[in-house]
């Protein structure tokens, strides 16, 4: 009886966990209207993006950290 109860509890816990995982879904190609919106682009303003990058690598001394050439000295 104890084993049965334990099995039921385990089963309920597993179902709850798996049900939570299936909250993830794939956005189909025809459903991407909102994702394709201009405002969804985090770097839609090139000037702002350049300034943010400059502040970032100046503060962190991490020139090259975003894929450009450099030795990480922050002197480029």
């Amino acid at each position, binding site marked *: 009886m104890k084993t049965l109860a334990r099995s039921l509890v385990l089963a309920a816990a*597993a179902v709850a966990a798996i049900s939570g995982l299936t909250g993830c879904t794939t956005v189909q*190609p*025809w459903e991407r209207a909102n994702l394709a919106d201009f405002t969804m682009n985090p770097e839609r303003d090139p000037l702002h993006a350049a300034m943010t990058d400059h502040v970032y690598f100046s503060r962190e001394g991490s020139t090259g950290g975003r894929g450009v050439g450099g030795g990480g000295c922050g002197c480029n």
Partner: protein
Amino acid sequence: MTDAARPEASPYRGVRAAILVAMCALCGSLPLRAASLAVGQPFPSLTDFALEGTPPETAAAKVVIVDFWASWCPPCRAAFPVLEAVQADFGAQGVQVIAVSVDQNRGAMEAFLKRHPVTFAVLRDAGQKLVQRVDVPTMPTTYVLDARGIVRFVHAGFDGDATRDRLRAEIASLLEEKS
């Protein structure tokens, strides 16, 4: 069989049962997805999906081009002049271009068509039922159908001149088949 002869129950029996139940629940909760429409398969009838707009008569068409597009999709916009040229150049030979918009926002589609007017047929799959049935791999996707409505070629995405040249060559080859 006596109790003494009965094999001892596995201590993991409960765990195994739990995993089995969880897997069943997972299978039940996953959406069933139809396979993408492939070359050699018949294209679904456009009249079965309550599309907005009047589907053109395709009974006499030798080649039908069905293009899935949306106003929010830049490559779809780039493909429109190519499709317009196909309709203009091959229309008299029995080629029919049908553009199926998957826009859920009707106003966005109409505004797009006002900016980019076309002469080929445009329908709207407002409920996105046809596009789900066809299960397009990307936007845009263009299907080239023969006179029997069989998918003969599929263009997933739009690759500029390369797509244009392939599309026109495929149309020419299908027209030759029928002549």
